[in-house]
Structures are given as C-alpha cells and as structure tokens.
C-alpha cells in the first residue's frame, strides 16, 4: 500500500473528455455553444429569435437539455431549425459524455452553429465542461442584479453574458450598470449584451459578436 498525493479535481475525467470532444468538433467545423441560465431566463425564446435573425446567414441547430419538457425542442422545430431533445438521465447539468451522446444522435452538418440549451440551473452546469467552444449565459431582469454575487462561477466561466428581458426594466429595480460591473469584476473578459428577445432590442449587437466569433473559429479550424 502506498499513499499517492493527487490534488486533482474530482471531475477531472470530464475535463479530459470535454477537451477531446472540443478538438474533434473543431476538425469537423462544428461550432458548439453551451447556453446556460436559471430556469425561465428566456433561453428558448432567445434562441428562437436568434434562429430567425440568422436564417440564410449560417446554419443553426439546437440541442435541448432543459428537463422541463420537450416543448422547447418542438418550439425550435417549428422555426424550421434542426433540433433534438438531449437527455441528462436526471442530472442537473450536461457533461461532456452526455453532450457527445446527444451530438451522435443529432448528426449536425459541418459548418453548423450548434446551441446546447443546458439544464435551467445557475450552479451545476457551470461546473461541467461540455466540450463547447463558447459559453454564453443569460441573466434575466426579473432575477435581479445581485446574481453575480450569489452564483459567481457561471459568470467567471462564460464568454458572454446576455442580460435578457430588458423590455421589463421599467417594472423591476434591476441596475444594469451594477450587474455589468459585478460580472466584469468576476471576469474582465466577459462580453455583456443587454437584450430583449421580445422587442429585438440589442439582438443585432449580440449577433454581430457571435458571427465574429464563429468566423474566427472557422478560420482557425
């Protein structure tokens, strides 16, 4: 018997699976985006809007992991985009192995932007690398501007923060600047976009940023 010091994250095996998947997808030209937020922050509504806006510019697919129902996948299908219901086996998040399984079933075409709508939960999804090339999180106005203080990890991990439902700003004391400042204090690199999927306000700025990241990805692939 010997004692071996490891000091390894318990979920280290997932990190390795995720890194492998990310490389494989890159060689196939598939741009995978992990979309995270609490339940009801507006992920599906936002995706529907994005799909409509990007139509004809770039093929978009959606993998729905939100366990709430398969209504979400149906809503996306109705827009004519390719989608699939992913299964987490009762887990509170998607990990790299579940994402790989979902992709195998989904069979996206090369060059596609694939959104993974993660389980509605501000904690666990942030802890598991899915193999995505980009992480985007949503924080909706009704949830409050103090969420970065309460759930820092997701803000630290994300490439972009969408502050959603900005059309509701007149009805809540949500301080946009305070939210932005808190997110940037945790993650100076995070891109912040206030948007309303309902009115379309702010969506163009986000979509330009997204297409910029997509181009940089395909050029480096």
């Amino acid at each position, binding site marked *: *018997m*010997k*004692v*071996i*010091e*490891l*000091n*390894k*994250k*318990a*979920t*280290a*095996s*997932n990190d*390795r699976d995720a890194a492998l998947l990310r490389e494989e997808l890159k060689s196939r030209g598939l741009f995978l985006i992990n979309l995270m937020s609490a339940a009801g922050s507006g992920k599906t509504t936002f995706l529907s809007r994005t799909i409509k806006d990007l139509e004809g510019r770039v093929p978009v697919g959606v993998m729905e992991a939100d366990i709430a129902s398969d209504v979400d996948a149906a809503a996306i299908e109705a827009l004519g985009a390719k989608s699939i219901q992913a299964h987490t086996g*009762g*887990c*509170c*998040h998607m*990990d790299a192995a579940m994402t790989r399984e979902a992709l195998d079933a989904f069979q996206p075409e090369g060059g596609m932007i694939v959104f993974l709508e993660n389980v509605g939960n501000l*904690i*666990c999804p942030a802890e*598991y690398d899915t193999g995505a090339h980009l992480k985007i999180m949503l924080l909706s106005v009704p949830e409050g501007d*103090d969420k970065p*203080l*309460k759930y*820092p*990890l997701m803000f630290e991990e994300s490439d972009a923060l969408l502050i959603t439902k900005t059309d509701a700003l007149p009805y809540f004391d949500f301080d946009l600047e305070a939210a932005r400042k*808190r997110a940037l*204090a*945790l993650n100076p690199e995070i891109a912040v976009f206030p948007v309303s999927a309902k009115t379309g306000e702010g969506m163009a700025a986000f979509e330009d940023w997204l297409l910029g990241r997509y181009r940089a990805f395909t050029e480096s692939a």
Partner: protein
Amino acid sequence: MHEMGIIIHLAGTLEETAREEGLTRISRVTLEVGEVSGIITDYFEDCWNYFKKRHPVLEDSRLEILTIPAVTYCSACGREYETVKYGRECPYCKSGETWLVRGNECVIKEIEAE
C-alpha cells in the same frame, strides 16, 4: 442529483489514475469538500458505497471527506470572513459586494492504493 453526477466523474478520474499509475486496488480516497459546495456528505457517501461496486479497482475503497471552511472576501473593505457564519453581508462594513474565495471545491487530495 448533484452528488451522483460528481461520483460518476470521481470514479472515472480514479480509474484513469489507476491505469496511469498501474494500480489494482484503491483502499482509501481522501477528498477535500468545500463547506458550501452543495455536497451533502452523508448522501455523497451513500452514493459512493453504491457506485464503487461497479468498479473492481474501487470496490474495497473507503471515502474520507475533509471539510474545507468557506471564506468570503469583501471588496468594499478588503477583509475576509467566515461565509457560513455571516453569509453574504460583510460583518465589518455591512457591504453586500462580497465574493466567495474558497469553500466550493471538490478535490481528490490523495489515495491509498497498491
């Protein structure tokens, strides 16, 4: 099922380690678990005892959990304090602009094996 998700990866990580190090039997797994990691240790151990049976190398292993106290930093006054005792509001200056410094981790510290 937060705990089960972690256990699945923990077992995967340990199997990988065993392969790399040429180990056939792990008898003890020592974890450092943050006080506010959301892991319920009793439940975590139950999950472990159930799950380890699927992995021959882990079958006889015992889980040892060391709790890491949570510490919060206040960006208003620059001090640190005990998270669990005071929560989100800084006990010194009453600011709410506070951040968790540690206490959210789940790390495999060491294993005993042959």
